[in-house]
């Protein structure tokens, strides 16, 4: 039965996260970008929400819900898309283990993500080459006795230097598969971040896997076969939720400014060229959100979600870029300088919308 009704719990989570975003995350977003680092205090604040830890719990028991997570990621994304991905990246790792890990993998790993301090981990999906696509991985895992030997380089791994584990997506036996690799495994090298256009505080970095020996027990699902597409789908939904949030953040920032700024005798917002852009921002934020919820609902109810996840990601990516673009334009020169967050959001929108695998919902 078609319904957009949020449960009482979802309403509480939504308003709590919105307040957290306003009071804690938004005020520090510029500093994190400038420092190109999320400091321990900021990570501790994220951890204190308990959201990442909840992903380690039992989905059947209601400990985690893709729809609820989509709502959360929109709220956090509205304040700072960078920290939203910092959370969502680790969520993606934990969810993959909780969803698809063997009993041994769950028992061995999930406990790492329920402790007192922030623990990062990431799905290592993207690779450092132009034209990279999730349908083809250059990273390979070759059988060697009971083990796998993983070779390749992964790119744009969020918080790479802080990760305890990577879930490395690689070609194995002719198909994409995933391998759990501790950061201190022999042959793993984490490169220095090179700096990036956007999401700078994530310290996006390359991670090299030089003949890393991975026991078969660390193949995701231990040979029962893993569903890489589900990890990709979940990431696309997660990213689209953050993009919806980012877009809403832009709109909420543009509205008061354009009402105050007087040009040729009238506020900017009274000019149709500006007002219509604002209307379009609202239209697209709404449309993004409902498409995103629908994809999250398909994930939650275990329906085939690949198509809707792709569409939510495609739509949000295109519209968020346009909204950030129009938002910056509305501020004119003020949008181009760092006194306002428009230039930051503009960079983040482009960066976010081309990521794959860097979030979980």
């Amino acid at each position, binding site marked *: 039965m078609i319904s957009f009704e949020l449960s009482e719990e979802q309403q509480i989570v939504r308003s709590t996260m919105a307040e957290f975003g306003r009071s804690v995350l938004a005020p520090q977003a510029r500093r994190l970008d400038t420092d190109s680092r999320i400091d321990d205090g900021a990570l501790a604040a994220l951890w204190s929400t308990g959201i990442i830890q909840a992903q380690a719990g039992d989905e059947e028991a209601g400990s985690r819900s893709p729809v609820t997570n989509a709502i959360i990621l929109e709220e956090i994304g509205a304040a700072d898309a960078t920290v939203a991905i910092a959370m969502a990246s680790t969520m993606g790792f934990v969810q993959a283990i909780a969803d698809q890990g063997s009993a041994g993998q769950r028992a061995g790993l999930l406990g790492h993500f329920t402790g007192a301090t922030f623990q990062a981990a990431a799905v290592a999906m993207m690779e450092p080459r132009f034209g990279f696509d999730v349908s083809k991985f250059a990273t390979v895992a070759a059988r060697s006795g009971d083990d796998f030997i993983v070779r390749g380089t992964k790119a744009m791994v969020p918080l790479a230097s802080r990760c305890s584990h990577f879930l490395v997506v690689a070609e194995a036996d002719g198909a994409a598969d995933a391998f759990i690799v501790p950061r201190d495994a022999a042959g793993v090298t984490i490169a220095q971040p090179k700096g990036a256009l956007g999401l700078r505080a994530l310290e996006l970095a390359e991670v090299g896997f030089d003949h890393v020996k991975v026991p078969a027990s660390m193949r995701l699902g231990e040979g029962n076969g893993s569903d890489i597409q589900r990890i990709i789908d979940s990431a696309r939904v997660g990213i689209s939720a953050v993009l919806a949030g980012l877009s809403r953040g832009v709109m909420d920032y543009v*509205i008061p400014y354009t009402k105050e700024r007087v040009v040729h005798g009238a506020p900017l917002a009274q000019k149709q060229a500006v007002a219509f852009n604002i209307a379009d921002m609202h239209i697209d934020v709404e449309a993004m959100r409902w498409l995103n919820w629908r994809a999250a609902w398909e994930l939650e109810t275990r329906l085939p979600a690949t198509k809707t996840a792709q569409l939510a990601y495609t739509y949000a990516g295109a519209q968020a870029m346009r909204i950030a673009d129009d938002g910056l334009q509305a501020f004119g020169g003020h949008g181009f300088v760092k006194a306002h967050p428009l230039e930051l959001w503009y960079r983040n929108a482009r960066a976010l919308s081309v990521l794959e695998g860097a979030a979980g919902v």
Partner: protein
Amino acid sequence: MVDFSLTEADRRLVALAHRENEIGRKYARERDRDSENEPSRVRGIHPDVADLESPHDALEREKDGTSGLVIAEALMDMVSATDVNLRDTGEDAFGTWMLNDYGSKEQKAKYGHLRLAIAITEPSAGSDPANMRTNARYDPVTDEYVLNGEKVFISFFNKFDGAVTLMKGEPDGKGKTPFMTFMVTKDMPGVAEIPQFKKLGIRSHELSGFHLQDVRVPAIARLDADFGKTMSKFNHNRPLVAAHALAGARSMLDFTHAKLAEAGLKVDYAKGRSARGANEDRLVRMEALWEAAWGTVMRAKWLEHEMGSESHGYRVEASVAKALGGKVVRQITQGCLEILGPEALSEEYLAEKWFRDARIADIYEGAGEIQRILIARALLGYKNELN
């Protein structure tokens, strides 16, 4: 709980609407060609569906099992391309609805047997009804009103008996002219019907209009209608306009997928954009537009279901659905024809018709610009500051 599943009743109703649409499709080309020239040729219920339950009746019967009456109605509309209406039963006589809503007993007795359109638009007053020139002057000597003016783009006026007509009264002490509403029938001296408009698309949706030249009507012809309240039906109708247009765009997308599949291209939603060719990428983006618009229609209709159709609480969402639906069907139908290439220009297929039909969706029932003004006013806290 957030839920996007359809109930069994929703599914049955959608299937019924879809079947009706499929049955009608074989008449689509003929209606497109002939309706503006031989409008009176087909009336009543088409023999092909005479023995089948009407989807509209089924909706009434099954409403309790649906996600909500207005939600199911929109779901059905989203599979009902505006190709052919096989049931011309007078449900589109909206003026008759107004008479039933606002007429006195005497008025219903006098005009109730007639099928009446609604006449609002004028050549120089479309989205801006305050600009209308059609007027009524009271003649106390005869207790009659004298009507003058011109109305255009009146749906199905050619087949109806008249129209409930909105116009301006005489200026009051402050120079303000109030809106007034009259029953105008074709047999009144001075009413001159104009020929059907020849249109880009939706040609089976017949449009005409009329001139009023010193038309004398008795006082009983004046309807004490609340047009503001009638306008509130816009909130109900706007997402449905989007829904209907989305049905046409859906037909176009399905046709495009099928024809490209025959040519060897099947869209793969799993892979990323770097692995997609140009046509495949455009199709993915157009599917995204369609689904995005679907969500806004459902959102508006769910709110309407929760709040009641008369509520103004979902008016912004109704405008969002209309604005986005109107926009995306333009983009989708234009884009599909470009991908399909020259063969799809042929009248052998309906693709070119869907392209023409879709274009009206961003114009009627409030143009896209009007929706954006309404949305922006709500967001900015403006009224007439934004025009």
